[in-house]
Each structure stands twice: as structure tokens, then as C-alpha cells.
């Protein structure tokens, strides 16, 4: 179904070896997206609760900022790395590689990494924010939205941990629980903050 997209992307990955980086960025920023939205939701719910519309606005604002900062930061860092690699190969080959598939693939790899980085954070964050979007249009009440968001955030963290365990070929359950613990630690810290304030 997505062959028109898969073929050029697999070509870029084959010639640039960027698959590993993109996978890393996807998991890393999905984590960021989930934890950031979890923080906004927990903070506003535990410190007295807020209008779902305000939480949606704050969440979407944070996701847009994360998307832009992720895409631009990753693009600049990745293109610098890729250009350095191109120069190293050019020095070893004693020829200019401009116009070759290697240069093309490495430059596209920087763009793909940036898009994956931004996309992962925004998509993961939106999944967690979805119940509040429903609450904002009065489909569900705000407490149900809170528990639904919390459940989806913790489930998403567990799934990301399982995925990392699969990548590392380690025990996927332990890896999932480790990721879940990060979410629970966030929950604990914000609850403690609520007690202090």
C-alpha cells in the first residue's frame, strides 16, 4: 500500500545507514511527548484541576514547540554529522561525491530523522491528549479524561519500553516495566510537588 513511500525511504536507509538513528529519535521523542503531556495533565489536575480547553491549549502549544525544536535541532545536528561523513568518504576516495546516491541519501536521511523526531513527539503527545480533546467538546467529563489520559500515557510508555526491549533483544517485559517506572516517577514527583505547594 505504501510502496511508493517505502521504496525511496528504504533506499535512503540502505545508502546512509540512518535507520538506527531514526529509530532512536522516534523512541526518544515519543517518550518526550508522552512525559511532557503527562506533566501538563498531572500538574493541572493535581494542583486544583483546570478547564479541559486550557489543558488542550497548553498541550498543543507544548507539542508544537517540541515538534519545531525537535525537527530543527535534529535536522541541524544530523546534517552536520552526515556532511562530516561525506567529507571523510571524499577524502578517502580522493573524488567529489556531489551528485552521487550517497550524498543524496545522507542529505535525505537528515530530513527523515528530523521529521521522525518531530512526528514521534507530536503523535505520542496527541494520543495522550486525545481524551482531553473529547472533554473539551463535552463528549466525556474531565475526570474521565484525566484517567483515560493517564492510562494511555502509562500504556504508551510500556509499549515504548517493550519496543526498546525488542530492539535490544532483551526481556521485553522488564524493559516495558522500566519505561512504565519513568511515568510513575513523574506521577510521584508531581504529586509530591502538590503536597509541598
Amino acid at each position, binding site marked *: 500500500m505504501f510502496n511508493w513511500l517505502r521504496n525511496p525511504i528504504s533506499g535512503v536507509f540502505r545508502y546512509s545507514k540512518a535507520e538506527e538513528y531514526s529509530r532512536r529519535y522516534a523512541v526518544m521523542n515519543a517518550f518526550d511527548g508522552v512525559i511532557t503531556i503527562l506533566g501538563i495533565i498531572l500538574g493541572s489536575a493535581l494542583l486544583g484541576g483546570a478547564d479541559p480547553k486550557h489543558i488542550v491549549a497548553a498541550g498543543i502549544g507544548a507539542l508544537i514547540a517540541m515538534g519545531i525544536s525537535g525537527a530543527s535541532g535534529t535536522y541541524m545536528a544530523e546534517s552536520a554529522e552526515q556532511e562530516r561523513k561525506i567529507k571523510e568518504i571524499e577524502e*578517502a576516495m580522493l573524488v567529489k561525491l556531489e551528485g*552521487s546516491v550517497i550524498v543524496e541519501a545522507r542529505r535525505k536521511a537528515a530530513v527523515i530523522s528530523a521529521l521522525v523526531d518531530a512526528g514521534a513527539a507530536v503523535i505520542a503527545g496527541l494520543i495522550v491528549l486525545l481524551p482531553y480533546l473529547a472533554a473539551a467538546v463535552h463528549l466525556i467529563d474531565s475526570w474521565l479524561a484525566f484517567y483515560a489520559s493517564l492510562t494511555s500515557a502509562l500504556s504508551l510508555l510500556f509499549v515504548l519500553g517493550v519496543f526498546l526491549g525488542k530492539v535490544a533483544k532483551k526481556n521485553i517485559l522488564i524493559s516495558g516495566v522500566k519505561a512504565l517506572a519513568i511515568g510513575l516517577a513523574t506521577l510521584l514527583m508531581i504529586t509530591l510537588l502538590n503536597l509541598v505547594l
Partner: protein
Amino acid sequence: MLSRLVLDILKPHIPDLIDFCRELSAVNGVKRVSGVVVEVDVETDTVKITVEGKGINFEELESKVKNMGAAIHSVDEVVFEE
């Protein structure tokens, strides 16, 4: 017409020899491509590529090699036949 070429090529590690030979086999007039790694360096491979066919388009072959970031160091064997 050009039917056989043996080329000494310096190429980066990527594309690997399989992708490299597969791309060359798509050149006009090429029927068979075989490759042997002669030397492996930190960033490059020296490979000996044998191209066989009928009326091999050498200009296209040369530009394909260049397009993959490689360079023909020498043409070691040439066969023309009617």
C-alpha cells in the same frame, strides 16, 4: 561491439558489492556482472568488476559508477566482438 570489461574500481563501503553490481547490471547492453573484493580499507573497498554483455554502453556504465560514489581506477581488460 563491446562485450566484456574488467574494471578496477575504488568504492565506499556503501553501497555494498551486491547493490553495486545490481545497479551496474541495469546498464544498457549488460547481461552479467561479477565482482570480487580485492582490498578493504577504513572507508573504501577496492573491487574488481567484470561486466559482460552485448554492446555494453560504457558511458552509461561510467556514469553509474560515478553516481554510486565510486571511481574507475583502471580498465584492465576489454573485449570487442562482432
